[in-house]
Protein backbone atom coordinates (compact mmCIF):
# COMPACT_ATOMS: atom_id res chain seq x y z
CA UNK A 1 0.00 0.00 0.00
CA UNK A 2 3.00 2.31 0.26
CA UNK A 3 3.39 2.39 -3.48
CA UNK A 4 2.53 5.72 -5.06
CA UNK A 5 0.84 3.79 -7.85
CA UNK A 6 -1.60 2.34 -5.38
CA UNK A 7 -2.31 5.76 -3.94
CA UNK A 8 -2.89 7.07 -7.45
CA UNK A 9 -5.25 4.29 -8.32
CA UNK A 10 -7.13 4.91 -5.08
CA UNK A 11 -7.60 8.59 -5.84
CA UNK A 12 -8.74 7.92 -9.38
CA UNK A 13 -11.08 5.18 -8.27
CA UNK A 14 -12.68 7.57 -5.79
CA UNK A 15 -13.27 10.15 -8.50
CA UNK A 16 -15.10 8.13 -11.09
CA UNK A 17 -17.68 5.49 -10.41
CA UNK A 18 -17.02 3.22 -13.37
CA UNK A 19 -13.45 4.19 -14.17
CA UNK A 20 -10.99 1.39 -13.67
CA UNK A 21 -7.70 3.14 -13.07
CA UNK A 22 -4.54 1.21 -13.92
CA UNK A 23 -3.08 -0.56 -10.96
CA UNK A 24 0.16 -2.32 -10.24
CA UNK A 25 -1.47 -5.35 -11.84
CA UNK A 26 -0.58 -3.71 -15.16
CA UNK A 27 2.90 -5.06 -14.55
CA UNK A 28 1.78 -8.58 -13.78
CA UNK A 29 0.08 -9.87 -16.92
CA UNK A 30 -1.06 -13.45 -17.06
CA UNK A 31 1.79 -15.82 -17.92
CA UNK A 32 1.89 -17.18 -21.44
CA UNK A 33 3.95 -20.14 -20.32
CA UNK A 34 5.24 -21.23 -16.97
CA UNK A 35 7.53 -23.97 -15.74
CA UNK A 36 9.48 -24.96 -12.70
CA UNK A 37 13.23 -25.40 -12.67
CA UNK A 38 15.42 -26.08 -9.65
CA UNK A 39 12.51 -25.21 -7.40
CA UNK A 40 11.93 -21.82 -9.03
CA UNK A 41 8.73 -20.90 -10.83
CA UNK A 42 9.49 -19.33 -14.18
CA UNK A 43 6.73 -17.33 -15.81
CA UNK A 44 7.03 -16.20 -19.38
CA UNK A 45 4.70 -13.22 -19.65
CA UNK A 46 3.93 -10.64 -22.28
CA UNK A 47 6.62 -8.39 -20.73
CA UNK A 48 9.21 -11.18 -20.94
CA UNK A 49 8.45 -11.56 -24.63
CA UNK A 50 8.72 -7.77 -25.09
CA UNK A 51 12.15 -7.83 -23.45
CA UNK A 52 13.28 -10.60 -25.78
CA UNK A 53 11.93 -8.79 -28.81
CA UNK A 54 13.59 -5.51 -27.77
CA UNK A 55 16.90 -7.26 -27.10
CA UNK A 56 16.76 -9.27 -30.30
CA UNK A 57 15.84 -6.16 -32.28
CA UNK A 58 18.72 -4.05 -30.99
CA UNK A 59 21.10 -7.00 -31.46
CA UNK A 60 19.92 -7.59 -35.02
CA UNK A 61 20.21 -3.89 -35.77
CA UNK A 62 23.75 -3.60 -34.44
CA UNK A 63 24.95 -6.88 -35.91
CA UNK A 64 23.61 -6.07 -39.35
CA UNK A 65 25.12 -2.58 -39.05
CA UNK A 66 28.63 -4.00 -38.69
CA UNK A 67 28.25 -7.03 -40.94
CA UNK A 68 29.86 -5.41 -43.94
CA UNK A 69 31.63 -2.37 -42.54
CA UNK A 70 32.78 0.27 -44.98
CA UNK A 71 35.08 3.24 -44.55
CA UNK A 72 32.31 5.51 -45.73
CA UNK A 73 29.39 4.18 -43.67
CA UNK A 74 25.91 3.50 -44.95
CA UNK A 75 22.95 4.94 -43.08
CA UNK A 76 22.52 2.01 -40.68
CA UNK A 77 26.24 1.67 -40.03
CA UNK A 78 26.49 5.40 -39.42
CA UNK A 79 23.60 5.28 -36.96
CA UNK A 80 25.06 2.35 -35.01
CA UNK A 81 28.53 3.85 -34.99
CA UNK A 82 27.19 7.20 -33.84
CA UNK A 83 25.40 5.50 -30.95
CA UNK A 84 28.54 3.66 -29.98
CA UNK A 85 30.64 6.81 -30.36
CA UNK A 86 28.37 8.73 -28.01
CA UNK A 87 29.08 6.19 -25.27
CA UNK A 88 32.70 5.55 -26.24
CA UNK A 89 33.84 9.17 -26.57
CA UNK A 90 31.14 11.08 -24.73
CA UNK A 91 30.94 8.81 -21.69
CA UNK A 92 33.79 6.28 -21.42
CA UNK A 93 36.59 8.61 -22.50
CA UNK A 94 35.24 11.88 -21.10
CA UNK A 95 34.09 10.58 -17.72
CA UNK A 96 36.75 7.95 -16.97
CA UNK A 97 39.60 9.28 -19.09
CA UNK A 98 42.03 7.37 -21.32
CA UNK A 99 41.69 4.32 -19.06
CA UNK A 100 37.96 4.32 -19.81
CA UNK A 101 38.16 3.13 -23.40
CA UNK A 102 38.35 -0.59 -22.48
CA UNK A 103 35.01 -0.16 -20.69
CA UNK A 104 33.36 1.42 -23.71
CA UNK A 105 31.94 -1.89 -25.05
CA UNK A 106 30.37 -2.73 -21.68
CA UNK A 107 28.98 0.76 -21.20
CA UNK A 108 27.63 0.82 -24.74
CA UNK A 109 26.00 -2.60 -24.28
CA UNK A 110 24.36 -1.28 -21.14
CA UNK A 111 23.23 1.84 -22.97
CA UNK A 112 21.78 0.01 -25.96
CA UNK A 113 20.04 -2.61 -23.80
CA UNK A 114 18.39 0.04 -21.62
CA UNK A 115 17.52 2.20 -24.59
CA UNK A 116 15.89 -0.64 -26.52
CA UNK A 117 13.92 -1.87 -23.50
CA UNK A 118 12.91 1.65 -22.49
CA UNK A 119 11.72 2.34 -26.01
CA UNK A 120 9.18 -0.45 -25.63
CA UNK A 121 7.17 1.81 -23.32
CA UNK A 122 5.92 3.87 -26.27
CA UNK A 123 6.18 1.41 -29.14
CA UNK A 124 2.65 0.46 -30.19
CA UNK A 125 1.39 -3.02 -29.22
CA UNK A 126 4.13 -3.35 -26.60
CA UNK A 127 3.63 -0.10 -24.71
CA UNK A 128 5.27 -1.33 -21.57
CA UNK A 129 8.95 -1.32 -20.80
CA UNK A 130 10.60 -4.41 -19.31
CA UNK A 131 12.56 -1.91 -17.25
CA UNK A 132 9.36 -1.08 -15.40
CA UNK A 133 9.79 -4.52 -13.84
CA UNK A 134 12.25 -4.04 -11.00
CA UNK A 135 14.00 -7.31 -11.83
CA UNK A 136 15.61 -5.99 -15.01
CA UNK A 137 17.14 -2.74 -13.67
CA UNK A 138 18.20 -4.78 -10.64
CA UNK A 139 20.06 -7.23 -12.86
CA UNK A 140 21.83 -4.37 -14.60
CA UNK A 141 22.68 -2.65 -11.31
CA UNK A 142 24.03 -5.90 -9.85
CA UNK A 143 26.21 -6.51 -12.90
CA UNK A 144 27.49 -2.94 -12.56
CA UNK A 145 28.04 -3.37 -8.83
CA UNK A 146 30.11 -6.51 -9.38
CA UNK A 147 32.06 -4.90 -12.20
CA UNK A 148 33.06 -1.65 -10.53
CA UNK A 149 34.01 -3.36 -7.28
CA UNK A 150 36.04 -5.96 -9.16
CA UNK A 151 37.78 -3.26 -11.22
CA UNK A 152 38.45 -1.26 -8.05
CA UNK A 153 40.05 -4.27 -6.34
CA UNK A 154 42.01 -5.18 -9.48
CA UNK A 155 43.32 -1.66 -10.06
CA UNK A 156 44.00 -0.56 -6.49
CA UNK A 157 44.30 -3.80 -4.53
CA UNK A 158 41.83 -5.09 -1.95
CA UNK A 159 43.22 -3.18 1.04
CA UNK A 160 43.61 0.11 -0.73
CA UNK A 161 40.18 -0.08 -2.34
CA UNK A 162 38.27 -0.83 0.83
CA UNK A 163 40.35 1.61 2.85
CA UNK A 164 39.65 4.40 0.37
CA UNK A 165 35.97 3.52 0.36
CA UNK A 166 35.74 3.51 4.16
CA UNK A 167 38.14 6.35 4.96
CA UNK A 168 37.99 9.06 2.31
CA UNK A 169 41.24 11.06 2.31
CA UNK A 170 41.11 14.55 3.76
CA UNK A 171 38.39 13.81 6.30
CA UNK A 172 39.22 14.72 9.93
CA UNK A 173 39.56 11.65 12.19
CA UNK A 174 36.65 12.73 14.41
CA UNK A 175 34.30 12.91 11.45
CA UNK A 176 35.11 9.37 10.43
CA UNK A 177 32.63 8.02 12.97
CA UNK A 178 29.92 9.50 10.78
CA UNK A 179 31.61 9.38 7.40
CA UNK A 180 32.83 5.78 7.35
CA UNK A 181 29.43 4.09 7.76
CA UNK A 182 27.86 6.50 5.27
CA UNK A 183 30.60 5.98 2.72
CA UNK A 184 30.53 2.19 3.05
CA UNK A 185 26.75 2.18 2.83
CA UNK A 186 26.89 4.46 -0.15
CA UNK A 187 29.46 2.56 -2.20
CA UNK A 188 28.25 -0.96 -1.50
CA UNK A 189 24.48 -0.65 -1.05
CA UNK A 190 23.03 2.72 -2.00
CA UNK A 191 24.79 3.04 -5.35
CA UNK A 192 23.42 -0.14 -6.95
CA UNK A 193 20.05 0.36 -5.29
CA UNK A 194 19.59 3.93 -6.54
CA UNK A 195 20.88 2.92 -9.95
CA UNK A 196 18.19 0.24 -10.22
CA UNK A 197 15.38 2.21 -8.58
CA UNK A 198 15.95 5.35 -10.67
CA UNK A 199 15.50 3.47 -13.92
CA UNK A 200 12.69 1.27 -12.65
CA UNK A 201 10.71 4.12 -11.10
CA UNK A 202 10.99 6.30 -14.18
CA UNK A 203 9.69 3.57 -16.47
CA UNK A 204 7.06 2.45 -13.97
CA UNK A 205 5.71 5.95 -13.45
CA UNK A 206 5.91 6.70 -17.15
CA UNK A 207 3.79 3.70 -17.97
CA UNK A 208 1.28 4.58 -15.26
CA UNK A 209 0.94 8.13 -16.57
CA UNK A 210 0.43 6.97 -20.14
CA UNK A 211 -2.01 4.28 -19.03
CA UNK A 212 -4.05 6.73 -16.93
CA UNK A 213 -4.50 9.18 -19.80
CA UNK A 214 -5.04 6.49 -22.42
CA UNK A 215 -7.65 4.68 -20.30
CA UNK A 216 -9.10 8.04 -19.31
CA UNK A 217 -9.57 9.01 -22.95
CA UNK A 218 -11.44 5.86 -23.78
CA UNK A 219 -13.48 6.04 -20.58
CA UNK A 220 -14.50 9.65 -21.25
CA UNK A 221 -15.39 8.82 -24.84
CA UNK A 222 -17.74 6.04 -23.91
CA UNK A 223 -19.02 7.25 -20.54
CA UNK A 224 -22.25 8.40 -22.17
CA UNK A 225 -22.69 11.86 -20.64
CA UNK A 226 -21.35 15.43 -21.11
CA UNK A 227 -17.88 14.28 -19.86
CA UNK A 228 -17.17 13.28 -23.42
CA UNK A 229 -16.00 16.86 -24.09
CA UNK A 230 -13.04 16.21 -21.81
CA UNK A 231 -11.90 13.24 -23.84
CA UNK A 232 -9.73 15.34 -26.24
CA UNK A 233 -7.91 16.88 -23.29
CA UNK A 234 -7.13 13.50 -21.90
CA UNK A 235 -5.98 12.39 -25.32
CA UNK A 236 -3.75 15.47 -25.69
CA UNK A 237 -2.23 14.70 -22.30
CA UNK A 238 -1.57 11.13 -23.39
CA UNK A 239 0.12 12.51 -26.52
CA UNK A 240 2.18 15.03 -24.56
CA UNK A 241 3.16 12.35 -22.08
CA UNK A 242 4.28 10.11 -24.93
CA UNK A 243 6.73 12.76 -26.05
CA UNK A 244 7.81 13.26 -22.48
CA UNK A 245 8.28 9.52 -22.21
CA UNK A 246 10.50 9.62 -25.29
CA UNK A 247 12.73 12.09 -23.49
CA UNK A 248 12.78 9.91 -20.38
CA UNK A 249 13.62 6.82 -22.43
CA UNK A 250 16.81 8.36 -23.81
CA UNK A 251 17.67 10.34 -20.71
CA UNK A 252 17.44 7.38 -18.32
CA UNK A 253 19.54 5.17 -20.58
CA UNK A 254 22.12 7.95 -20.69
CA UNK A 255 21.99 8.67 -16.97
CA UNK A 256 22.38 5.01 -16.05
CA UNK A 257 25.44 4.72 -18.30
CA UNK A 258 27.02 7.97 -17.11
CA UNK A 259 26.59 6.99 -13.47
CA UNK A 260 28.13 3.59 -14.10
CA UNK A 261 31.03 5.36 -15.84
CA UNK A 262 31.43 7.61 -12.80
CA UNK A 263 31.58 4.59 -10.49
CA UNK A 264 34.11 2.92 -12.78
CA UNK A 265 36.14 6.11 -12.83
CA UNK A 266 36.27 6.03 -9.03
CA UNK A 267 37.35 2.39 -9.18
CA UNK A 268 40.07 2.94 -11.77
CA UNK A 269 41.60 6.01 -10.15
CA UNK A 270 42.21 6.11 -6.38
CA UNK A 271 40.17 8.72 -4.50
CA UNK A 272 41.76 12.16 -4.55
Amino acid sequence: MTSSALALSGVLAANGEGFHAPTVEEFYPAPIASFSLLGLDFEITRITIIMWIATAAILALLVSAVRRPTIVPGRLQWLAESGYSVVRDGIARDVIGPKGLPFAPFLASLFFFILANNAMSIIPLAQISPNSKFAIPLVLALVCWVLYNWIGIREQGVGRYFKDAAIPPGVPAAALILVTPIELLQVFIIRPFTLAVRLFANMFAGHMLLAVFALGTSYLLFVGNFSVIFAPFSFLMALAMTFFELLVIVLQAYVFTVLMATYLSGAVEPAH
Partner: protein
Amino acid sequence: MNILAAESHNPLIPPISEIIVGAITFGILLLVLVKFVFPQMEKTFVARREAIEGGIERAETMQADAKAALEQYRAQLAEARTEAAQIRDAARADGQQIIEELRAQAQEESARIVARGEEQLASSRQQVLNELRGQIGTLAVELAGRVVGESLADDARRSGTVDRFLDDLDGMSAATAGDAR
Protein backbone atom coordinates in the same frame (compact mmCIF):
# COMPACT_ATOMS: atom_id res chain seq x y z
CA MET B 1 -11.14 -2.21 -7.11
CA ASN B 2 -8.17 -4.39 -7.49
CA ILE B 3 -6.53 -3.32 -4.28
CA LEU B 4 -6.60 -6.80 -2.80
CA ALA B 5 -5.01 -8.35 -5.84
CA ALA B 6 -2.47 -5.53 -5.99
CA GLU B 7 -1.44 -6.18 -2.43
CA SER B 8 -0.16 -9.58 -3.42
CA HIS B 9 2.45 -7.95 -5.68
CA ASN B 10 5.18 -5.66 -4.41
CA PRO B 11 6.90 -4.15 -7.43
CA LEU B 12 10.12 -3.69 -5.47
CA ILE B 13 10.42 -7.40 -4.63
CA PRO B 14 10.95 -9.21 -7.89
CA PRO B 15 10.89 -13.01 -8.06
CA ILE B 16 14.29 -14.64 -8.47
CA SER B 17 13.18 -16.27 -11.71
CA GLU B 18 12.63 -12.87 -13.32
CA ILE B 19 16.11 -11.79 -12.30
CA ILE B 20 17.53 -14.96 -13.84
CA VAL B 21 15.66 -14.48 -17.12
CA GLY B 22 16.73 -10.84 -17.24
CA ALA B 23 20.34 -11.75 -16.48
CA ILE B 24 20.42 -14.37 -19.24
CA THR B 25 18.91 -11.94 -21.74
CA PHE B 26 21.33 -9.17 -20.85
CA GLY B 27 24.19 -11.67 -20.78
CA ILE B 28 23.52 -12.79 -24.35
CA LEU B 29 23.35 -9.19 -25.53
CA LEU B 30 26.54 -8.32 -23.65
CA LEU B 31 28.36 -11.31 -25.12
CA VAL B 32 27.43 -10.57 -28.72
CA LEU B 33 28.03 -6.84 -28.48
CA VAL B 34 31.29 -6.96 -26.52
CA LYS B 35 32.78 -9.91 -28.39
CA PHE B 36 31.67 -9.11 -31.89
CA VAL B 37 29.88 -5.86 -32.64
CA PHE B 38 31.97 -3.25 -30.84
CA PRO B 39 35.40 -4.72 -31.70
CA GLN B 40 34.24 -4.66 -35.31
CA MET B 41 33.31 -0.99 -34.92
CA GLU B 42 36.68 -0.24 -33.33
CA LYS B 43 38.34 -1.91 -36.32
CA THR B 44 36.28 0.22 -38.67
CA PHE B 45 37.25 3.34 -36.72
CA VAL B 46 40.93 2.45 -37.01
CA ALA B 47 40.56 1.68 -40.72
CA ARG B 48 38.73 4.94 -41.26
CA ARG B 49 41.35 6.94 -39.37
CA GLU B 50 44.10 5.26 -41.36
CA ALA B 51 42.26 5.90 -44.61
CA ILE B 52 41.90 9.57 -43.74
CA GLU B 53 45.46 9.88 -42.50
CA GLY B 54 46.69 7.91 -45.52
CA GLY B 55 44.80 10.26 -47.80
CA ILE B 56 46.30 13.27 -46.11
CA GLU B 57 49.73 11.67 -46.29
CA ARG B 58 49.28 10.94 -49.99
CA ALA B 59 48.19 14.50 -50.64
CA GLU B 60 51.18 15.79 -48.69
CA THR B 61 53.55 13.55 -50.66
CA MET B 62 52.05 14.73 -53.92
CA GLN B 63 52.35 18.32 -52.87
CA ALA B 64 55.97 17.81 -51.86
CA ASP B 65 56.66 16.12 -55.19
CA ALA B 66 55.09 18.98 -57.10
CA LYS B 67 57.08 21.45 -55.06
CA ALA B 68 60.30 19.56 -55.71
CA ALA B 69 59.55 19.44 -59.43
CA LEU B 70 58.92 23.17 -59.43
CA GLU B 71 62.16 23.81 -57.58
CA GLN B 72 64.04 21.62 -60.00
CA TYR B 73 62.48 23.40 -62.95
CA ARG B 74 63.38 26.76 -61.50
CA ALA B 75 66.93 25.66 -60.79
CA GLN B 76 67.27 24.37 -64.32
CA LEU B 77 65.89 27.60 -65.70
CA ALA B 78 68.33 29.66 -63.64
CA GLU B 79 71.15 27.38 -64.69
CA ALA B 80 70.20 27.76 -68.35
CA ARG B 81 70.05 31.50 -67.95
CA THR B 82 73.46 31.62 -66.32
CA GLU B 83 74.84 29.39 -69.01
CA ALA B 84 73.39 31.58 -71.75
CA ALA B 85 74.87 34.67 -70.12
CA GLN B 86 78.21 32.93 -69.85
CA ILE B 87 78.09 31.90 -73.49
CA ARG B 88 77.19 35.44 -74.47
CA ASP B 89 80.02 36.88 -72.43
CA ALA B 90 82.47 34.35 -73.81
CA ALA B 91 81.38 35.11 -77.37
CA ARG B 92 81.79 38.80 -76.76
CA ALA B 93 85.23 38.28 -75.28
CA ASP B 94 86.21 36.00 -78.14
CA GLY B 95 85.09 38.57 -80.69
CA GLN B 96 87.07 41.28 -78.94
CA GLN B 97 90.11 39.06 -78.89
CA ILE B 98 89.75 38.19 -82.57
CA ILE B 99 89.44 41.86 -83.44
CA GLU B 100 92.52 42.64 -81.35
CA GLU B 101 94.47 39.87 -82.99
CA LEU B 102 93.45 40.91 -86.47
CA ARG B 103 94.33 44.51 -85.73
CA ALA B 104 97.74 43.52 -84.41
CA GLN B 105 98.30 41.27 -87.39
CA ALA B 106 97.34 44.05 -89.76
CA GLN B 107 99.59 46.53 -88.02
CA GLU B 108 102.46 44.08 -88.12
CA GLU B 109 101.84 43.46 -91.80
CA SER B 110 101.68 47.11 -92.63
CA ALA B 111 104.81 47.78 -90.61
CA ARG B 112 106.58 45.00 -92.44
CA ILE B 113 105.45 46.30 -95.83
CA VAL B 114 106.56 49.79 -94.89
CA ALA B 115 109.90 48.49 -93.66
CA ARG B 116 110.52 46.50 -96.82
CA GLY B 117 109.58 49.47 -98.96
CA GLU B 118 112.00 51.67 -97.06
CA GLU B 119 114.70 49.05 -97.36
CA GLN B 120 114.15 48.76 -101.11
CA LEU B 121 114.08 52.48 -101.41
CA ALA B 122 117.38 52.80 -99.51
CA SER B 123 119.07 50.07 -101.51
CA SER B 124 117.97 51.49 -104.86
CA ARG B 125 119.05 54.94 -103.73
CA GLN B 126 122.45 53.58 -102.80
CA GLN B 127 122.62 51.83 -106.15
CA VAL B 128 121.66 54.99 -107.99
CA LEU B 129 124.13 56.94 -105.87
CA ASN B 130 127.00 54.51 -106.63
CA GLU B 131 126.18 54.51 -110.38
CA LEU B 132 125.95 58.24 -110.38
CA ARG B 133 129.19 58.55 -108.49
CA GLY B 134 130.96 56.40 -111.12
CA GLN B 135 129.37 58.14 -114.05
CA ILE B 136 129.80 61.62 -112.61
CA GLY B 137 133.51 60.85 -112.04
CA THR B 138 134.03 59.67 -115.63
CA LEU B 139 131.99 62.55 -117.02
CA ALA B 140 133.79 65.12 -114.91
CA VAL B 141 137.20 63.75 -115.79
CA GLU B 142 136.29 63.68 -119.42
CA LEU B 143 134.92 67.17 -119.12
CA ALA B 144 137.98 68.45 -117.25
CA GLY B 145 140.37 66.72 -119.72
CA ARG B 146 138.61 68.41 -122.50
CA VAL B 147 138.52 71.69 -120.70
CA VAL B 148 142.16 71.81 -119.67
CA GLY B 149 143.31 69.79 -122.61
CA GLU B 150 145.62 67.74 -120.70
CA SER B 151 145.39 64.09 -120.15
CA LEU B 152 145.05 63.20 -116.69
CA ALA B 153 145.64 59.55 -117.30
CA ASP B 154 147.71 59.22 -114.27
CA ASP B 155 145.45 57.29 -112.03
CA ALA B 156 146.77 58.56 -108.80
CA ARG B 157 146.41 62.11 -109.64
CA ARG B 158 143.19 61.58 -111.41
CA SER B 159 141.54 59.81 -108.56
CA GLY B 160 142.83 62.42 -106.15
CA THR B 161 141.49 65.21 -108.27
CA VAL B 162 138.13 63.52 -108.73
CA ASP B 163 137.77 62.77 -105.10
CA ARG B 164 138.64 66.29 -104.23
CA PHE B 165 136.12 67.53 -106.75
CA LEU B 166 133.44 65.26 -105.39
CA ASP B 167 134.18 66.25 -101.85
CA ASP B 168 133.88 69.83 -102.94
CA LEU B 169 130.59 68.97 -104.53
CA ASP B 170 129.48 67.29 -101.34
CA GLY B 171 130.59 70.23 -99.33
CA MET B 172 128.77 72.52 -101.65
CA SER B 173 125.58 70.56 -101.46
CA ALA B 174 125.92 70.38 -97.68
CA ALA B 175 126.43 74.08 -97.50
CA THR B 176 123.44 74.61 -99.77
CA ALA B 177 121.39 72.30 -97.49
CA GLY B 178 122.71 74.25 -94.48
CA ASP B 179 121.78 77.54 -96.17
CA ALA B 180 118.42 76.13 -97.06
CA ARG B 181 117.86 75.19 -93.52
